[in-house]
């Protein structure tokens, strides 16, 4: 495969749900990008080079020519405006607000309370046994809220019959809840149904952690190129 210079670069970590949101967005919009792994467990986010890109040391970071954007919410809004194909926000204001709310329940009420840094703190200062219960509690609280919020609005997907922003933020969080924290999804029938729906979408599945170049799985180790592209066949 020719190593052409791809305009879009995404600094990402395989397991980062924030990175996963953007990987889904890029897939849906049919945007090719160069995948640049940042190994969070090895502390690569603290390297001087990466700190210059994002001083808070989080992934994802998107580089689009001269433009550097970090934070999945900011990146999402940038992509939505710059590459309007396959719109990921509805035009109706209430529905749009609903998408922002759902996304923020994930971004502010769930994910920050179960990210690596916080879990490490709980493990060290409280006890290793507290780590998973802490994460589960916050995930479940957030999932309960999402069930209530979306109950009267969900269709095939979170806010209707089309994939929108809420789905991009939900899918990676539900995935993490199930795979990493053993959340009992029987309590969350809507989210379970949505998870099933996402499992049938290649653009979502290709973005999942286990399918990334830096994933420790067999698939991941076979990818000897850091270039990744998804062609939009739909």
């Amino acid at each position, binding site marked *: 495969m020719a190593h052409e210079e791809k305009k879009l670069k995404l600094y990402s970590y395989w397991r980062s749900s924030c990175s996963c949101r953007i990987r889904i967005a890029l897939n849906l919009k049919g945007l090719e990008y160069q995948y640049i792994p940042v190994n969070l467990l090895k502390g690569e986010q603290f390297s001087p080079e990466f*700190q210059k890109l994002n*001083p*808070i*040391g*989080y992934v994802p970071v998107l580089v689009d020519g001269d*433009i*550097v*954007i*970090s*934070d*999945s*919410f*900011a*990146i999402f*809004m*940038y992509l939505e*405006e*710059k590459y309007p194909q396959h719109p990921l926000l509805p035009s109706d*204001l*209430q529905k*749009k*607000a609903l998408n*922002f*709310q759902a*996304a*923020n*329940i994930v*971004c*502010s*009420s769930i*994910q*920050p*309370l179960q990210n690596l840094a*916080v879990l490490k*703190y709980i493990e060290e*200062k*409280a006890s290793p046994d*507290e780590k998973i219960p*802490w994460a589960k509690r916050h995930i479940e609280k*957030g999932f*309960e*809220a999402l069930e*209530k*919020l979306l109950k009267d609005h969900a269709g095939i997907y979170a806010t209707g019959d089309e994939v929108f922003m809420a789905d991009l933020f939900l899918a990676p969080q539900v995935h993490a809840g199930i795979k990493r924290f053993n959340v009992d999804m029987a309590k969350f029938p809507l989210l379970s149904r949505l998870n099933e729906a996402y499992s049938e979408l290649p653009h979502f599945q290709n973005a999942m952690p286990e399918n990334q170049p830096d994933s420790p799985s067999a698939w991941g180790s076979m990818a000897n190129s850091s270039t990744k592209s998804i062609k939009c066949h739909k």
Partner: protein
Amino acid sequence: MAPKDGGEASSKLVLYSYWQSSCSWRVRFALNLKGLSYEYKAVNLAKGEQFTPEFEKLNPLHFVPVLVDGDVVVSDSYAILMYLEEKYPQRTLLPADPQQKALNLQVASIISSSIQPLLMLSILKYLEEKVGLEERLLFVQTNIEKGFLALEKLLKDFVGKYATGEEVYMADVFMAPQIAVATERFKIDMSKFPTLSRIYESQRALPEFLAASPERQPDAVH
């Protein structure tokens, strides 16, 4: 620009708010900047009013603020601000330039996702139980300082009179209440953050910010 307390049925906008909530402060600040009057409905978090069935219908996560605009109900300050920005575009809070816009959204996210959630009452209570008061304060200060340090580095090359230039934008709307809370409630030493300190001096001088401050709200307890 003071909010109307109770009775004005002609006000289309209704804001459910708690005087001390920094998230509510953001929205009050933005409403003032946009010159939007609103009815203030107090939700006493200390008395658990966020858990009433009526409020739960408005926000299943039991958080303030919640904005009601006719038939539209929006909770979560970030979602409310994005809604206001689109519905009432006067006095825009997001610059047109994509890099600048993204910067403002990023600052807002750093505050709303990396700082504020770790300061919530429920988290603080848990930490007090599990690690004690002293360790809890350290946790809070460490997280605030981590976020502020990131903002300091991030904004260094973009800052003007305000966070991202000469105009007040979304970044300022999120930043100013957060710095106020950090200094007053958690005793953060802002001398470590000269850029943020300088911006904050400009922000706190704004009448729209002052009118939105906790002590000036109808439910403030003095």
